[in-house]
């Protein structure tokens, strides 16, 4: 018993300090205001829900960065659910069926996960900002700006595209391996009954990998609030406010707070508000996904 205690005591202490303690401090910080005086001393005072009000008012203020961040986060999430996941499932099915070039697809789609994000971002930005305009000029005789430095719409679509492409990695392997676990006998029986590939995909593969799919769907909900869309890697702290996501916006608040502690209470309040939204959303999604579960097993 003592051995077990000795084994876990250090991790427990770390957990208590760096997780529990930090979160309790964040909670309390959200209700305070920090002022730094000319002498260098600082003063902390209780301001109730002022920081929360400020955060919420910025969500609802016209043309505010936070409002754009909320909308953009929803768009990024919608793209991931409506485009990314269906494409992932289709590619996973193609790879699972070992159709022509499946190994090439597997490698190309998994590449962004293998390489460092920075390397991928730099390579991608070099390609879209230098090679694409050059190709546009050579092939179509058209002068065009780089896709990340030109007009806002082009930048927005390019960021979404990169997010979709770079998001394939681990999901692809998970879905493909989940599909590989489907018993061959089920697939063969379906074939004998004249089941087409599309029918097989929709009525056999998807229901049978539903547990994996629903887990991914559930785990992706916090990403609605955390995903930066690789904006920091592309633009540093200077991404156009109209491109920002909630994850990026909150990251900038933390960066600001690391330089000046007076900015931390606002960031804490924002974090708590987003948590208060994320929890019921996640629980609700779990309930919905459980309801939609076809409850087939093998």
């Amino acid at each position, binding site marked *: 018993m003592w051995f077990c205690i000795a084994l876990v005591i250090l991790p427990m202490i770390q957990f208590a300090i760096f997780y529990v303690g930090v979160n309790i401090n964040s909670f309390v910080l959200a209700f305070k205001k*920090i*002022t*730094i*005086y*000319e*002498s*260098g*001393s*600082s003063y902390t005072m209780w301001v109730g829900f002022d920081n929360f009000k*400020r955060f919420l008012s*910025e969500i609802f203020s016209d*043309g*505010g*960065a*936070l409002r*754009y961040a909320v909308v953009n986060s929803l768009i990024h999430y919608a793209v991931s659910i409506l485009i990314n996941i269906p494409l992932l499932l289709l590619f996973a099915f193609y790879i699972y069926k070992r159709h022509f070039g499946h190994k090439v697809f597997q490698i190309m789609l998994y590449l962004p996960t293998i390489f460092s994000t920075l390397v991928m971002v*730099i390579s991608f*930005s*070099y390609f879209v*900002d*230098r090679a694409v*305009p050059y190709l546009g000029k050579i092939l179509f005789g058209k002068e065009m*700006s*780089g896709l*990340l*430095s*030109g007009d806002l719409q082009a930048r927005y679509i390019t960021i979404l595209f990169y997010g979709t492409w770079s998001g394939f990695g681990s999901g692809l392997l998970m879905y493909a391996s989940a599909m590989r676990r489907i018993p061959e006998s089920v697939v063969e029986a379906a074939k004998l009954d004249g089941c087409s590939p599309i029918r097989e995909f929709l009525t056999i593969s998807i229901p049978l990998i539903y547990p994996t799919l629903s887990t991914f769907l559930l785990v992706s909900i916090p990403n609605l609030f955390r995903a930066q869309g690789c904006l920091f890697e*592309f*633009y*540093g702290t*200077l991404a*156009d*406010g*109209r491109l*920002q996501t909630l994850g990026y916006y909150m990251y900038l608040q933390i960066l*600001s707070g*690391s*330089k*000046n*502690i*007076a*900015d931390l209470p606002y960031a804490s309040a924002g974090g708590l508000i987003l948590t208060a939204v994320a929890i019921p959303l996640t629980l609700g999604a779990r309930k919905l996904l459980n309801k939609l579960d076809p409850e087939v097993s093998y």
Partner: protein
Amino acid sequence: MKKKLICVGLSLLTVFSCVACRSTSEQIDETRSQLYVFNYDAGFGSDWLKTAIERFEAKYADTSFEAGKQGVQVWVDNQISIPDNNTVKGQNNAIYFLEEKDYYEGISQGVYKDITSWMKEPLTEYGETESIEDKMYAYGTTFPDFYKTSEGKYYAIPFHEGFWGINYDVDLFGEKELFMTTAFEEKSEGASHAESIPAYWSNGKEKSNLSKGPDGAAGTIDDGLPATYDDFYVLLDRMLVRGVTPFHWSGKSIRYTTNMMYNLWVDYEGEEQMMLNYRMNGNATDLSTIDGGALVTDETPLAITQANGYELQRQAGKYYALSFAQKIVTDKRYYNDLAYSPSETHKTAQATYLYSGLNGSPVAFLIDGSYWQREANAIFTEMGAVDESYSRASRKFGMLPFPKATAKKVGEKQTIAGGAGSYMVVNGSSSAGVTKQMEMAKLFIQYIHTDEILKVFTENTGSTRPLDYDFTEAEMAAQPYYTQTIWNLHKNNKIICPWANTSLIISNHDEFNDQNNGFKYSSVQTTPFEYLKEISAEEAFGKLYDYKKNKWPQLG
């Protein structure tokens, strides 16, 4: 067998990754006392520090700072990231050279040591009569006001005066005849096609034929350079005629362009008016509004207090800075194709700029910090290895003295904002490891503020420190041309510290830095070089005022 080999290979990879990345040929000398220094090894590097350390160690080779040891060994921890305050508290470094750190926050957290007595002590140990504080005040700018707390204490010493501006290729100006002549100066106002009239332009060799430049005086370092914004716009067109792309900047570090615009604003306003933005105490004399598309200045000055500080967003200099920027960004011919690309980091932008002449598309200006040449050392070395004429020693660059917004301002000294977030501190930790270094730390801090080492700093970095020190004419003539242009700004003009130690400013650091205080009009649009492509300078001027006015009550 295959699997075993793979496992062994992966294990070896892991082992190698555990080996310390930093190799050092120097070992700790147990016979000497150790002094540990942290250096933010970015734009200014550490070469100047190496020279200072060599001389310091030699000077104190026979001095005993602790029993059983003789001499001092200074260890420098060069890093490219700044430690946070908690990390500083736990480290053994006695001295820190820092940037972009909030000074007053460090004091409030007890991270920095009170070094007031060190600042006030004359440097007699080194044969000088002035103290560090004396040198700061003798320099005559606002730096001491910021670094001295309301209780009269010092916890840091300002480090460098690095600032952002328009760097220009002097060789290119000569080759493409981009210097202005006296004939240009004397031309009638509104004369058309001035960019194409040969008599107005020169290769710069005939000094007596050059225009007087922004300082309005002949025979000075800015001769032949544009005196006013209007002159500058003609120069842009001249560049196009001569096949030169005027501008390049880093799309990834596009904040440099905002810093440059901020300095345009500072230069217009001058020290007294500009410092109102931070002291909130005085009369603002050039507050303006846009009326019928024109800038109209208020008839009577406005008394500025903390209650109405947002009115300073209507300073005329801000409008002129916006109009200058708009002229550049609304014509794609005036900047390089890659200027806005986020793939263009500050270093790739320097490479694009330095290599531009080789591919037939030379670029005249690079918007960057005054430290850029040291940062681009590797590129200069690479180019110099192929052809010596492209090395740093052979090429001639300068920091363009800002043209004046109006002809009335020609002749006024330049005013520029130097780095307020760059300073050196002493670790306030009471640990034994730090405390035993204090005697050496004090001597080292004082030593690097002797005239000798202040000059070493300028010689090595090409930049200046906000203190009073001097070079002889011969010494300065031996420096690279770029250093000479920076020295001219230090010696003959005004570099100010755009900050104040009032609670309003300190507690709202982010809102009052040069990025946000100058040119942010919404939480969305922060970079004028981007939003001025979509809205006019006049519209931006109004939006900047409205934004600050609405934000002001939250800053109290």
